């Protein structure tokens, strides 16, 4: 199962390699990893998307907590959370099917950020599932290039009562 982990770390040199080295050294999967500083310049937030059964994810969380530079780890998958990812995608779009591509842009409420006679570059924001759905629709036109941020996520303020 896919898990989104929100990890607060000390913002210091080498912290990213401690985390990435943990994943590679122990054979854990990383689907995406996003890192930037928080309001407190001494602390960074990493959002890590990983895949594994409960047993493995429990081990990943414990191993992350064991790193001396990791302050806090939250598995957002077990909570109500807002999750977003940004994608930029360059799709082939000559005259013959530019309209069709634009319809998909509208449906998914994306933005066109660059255009040329041969292609369109689209900026899309959404959940992982939404972006996957859009990608599968655009694939048939020919995807020339793609860049995505990986998931960022945040716990919702109001959690459902258990």
């Amino acid at each position, binding site marked *: 199962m896919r898990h989104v982990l929100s990890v607060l*770390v*000390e913002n210091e*040199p*080498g912290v990213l*390699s*401690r985390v990435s*080295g943990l994943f590679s*050294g122990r054979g854990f999967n990383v689907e995406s990893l996003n890192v930037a500083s928080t309001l407190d310049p001494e602390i960074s937030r990493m959002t890590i998307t990983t895949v594994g059964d409960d*047993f493995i994810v*429990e*081990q990943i969380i*414990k*191993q992350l*907590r*064991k*790193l*001396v*530079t*990791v*302050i806090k780890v939250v598995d957002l998958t077990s909570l109500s959370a807002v999750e977003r990812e940004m994608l930029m995608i360059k799709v082939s779009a000559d005259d013959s099917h530019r309209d069709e591509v634009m319809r998909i842009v509208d449906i998914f409420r994306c933005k066109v950020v660059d255009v040329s006679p041969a292609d369109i570059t689209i900026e899309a924001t959404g959940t992982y599932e939404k972006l996957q759905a859009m990608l599968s629709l655009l694939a048939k036109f020919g995807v020339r290039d793609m860049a995505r941020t990986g998931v960022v996520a945040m716990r919702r303020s109001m959690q459902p009562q258990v």
Partner: protein
Amino acid sequence: MELTGAGILLEGLKREGVEIIFGYPGGAIIDIYDELSRADLKHILVRHEQSAVHAADGYARASGKVGVCLVTSGPGVTNAVTGIATANADSIPLVVITGQVSSHLIGNDAFQEVDTVGITRPCTKHNYLVRDISSLPAIISQAFYLARSGRPGPVLVDLPKNVIVGKTDCVWPESVQMRSYNPNYIPNVSQLRKVADLLAKAEKPVFLIGGGVILSNAYAELTQLAELTSTPVVSTLMGLGGYPGNGRLWKGMAGMHGEFAANKALTEADFILAVGTRFSDRTTGRLDTFAPDAEIVHIDIDPTSIRKNVQVDVPLVADCRLALKELSVIVRERYGDRDWTGTRLSWNEFLERTRRDCPLRYARTEEIKPQQVMECINRLTGGEAILTTEVGQHQMWAAQFFHCTRPRAFITSGGLGAMGYGLPAAIGAQLASPGKLVIDIAGDGSIQMNIHELATVVQNRLPIKIIIFNNRYLGMVRQWQELFYAKNYSCTDMSAQPDFVKLAEAYGVEGYRASRPEELEATLDRAFKSSGPVLVDVNIRREENVMPMVPSGASLDKVLLAEEQI
């Protein structure tokens, strides 16, 4: 007061109570050595950086204190890596100080530059590259705090040359507090009550103890709980000495080369209290058939050890000593009037019978048997010596036949299995225990990995006894080749070897040889009575195997026995 980086380091070591360090000089740390010559600190000059770390590790294991070593940049660090990984695998508290090229040269492939924090990141508990001399006092304090607290381990501090020679006003932190590191020592009482109830309900309970019992000094509490509840005790390799090897509830070492009865205890148990062990593959054998009927309680200071390999019914993150102590109190409160001896009688008798029927047995021959050597050492020392070992067959014979009666007296590279560990570790252990008999149990292969340390032994007049179990093979690999590779002894014949007696003498160490069983006892006795270092070359039967053996990946009950053990 304004101090150089070197001065701050040495003052820091003094503040932490360090009395001895192990090291090897070099360009990047020459300024520390210059300062060291004026400091009140004993330095042991080894002959290879790997030995500096192993010696500090042996010192730490024997004394319970943090071991400290000092090596230079580049090759000094890469040579030290095996030692650091050894300490990391066995959770040994070390502070490793390394030199580094000047900050402005880092990343330029300078002379003797390696990415030390990069290389050692996966084999240290934590590491630091000191970028700014003003942070040095805090980093030194944190390094010692991290090394000795929680699950102990090696912490490395990398010091660029400009930090070593730079000057600053040195301010020591009053205490070490780290928001991202707070190990939990205190056991959860409601979990402990559950454990007490399970232990009381169990008909066939067993305690499985690991290195954590030694590291947390929990042996008295463990022995007390075992005696109180008449529960048999088995151990991993790292746990040897955590319960006396001659104690009434002792059932032997478990695992790949464990005693038949110890493995039987784990397989038949309906309750296992695992204390300070990480359930290594060498202990559990095949996981899906491990302890099939047992409810398992796992006490460990490190949350990652729990449910990493084995699913447990009651997890307990706590200091082993505190948890066992509290558990005894709860058991007394709840089950104080219980006849533990009576209720455990048939289970204990069953295991004792199994142990008698299937003991660690071997047949005597015209040649010296390695087991016989260990028995002889056991007899001559009364189990009172401190043993270090190298890695291989001799290590397993030592574990099986030396009845280690107290903690910190069986010092071995368990997790990493680093050949060459024993001699430098003996140096550290001897320095930690002056006046005690320290014996390195060695193989002819392993001893050659760090034999140059004989010079360190002589230079420091350390009366270490080295017993080489010489079969002119890399014996453990040969054993696997015999059993699982149709006797294809590929590259394990070590017949081309030095005359170890003459080699010892060349270093200034007494050298003896025993080749026939009737020479054995007198030779060892003479060695142990000598006041100086002695190397004894014991020619043992070449193709002797360590038995019993659970093949790698097999269930603990799928055990191979020697003919005479059946």
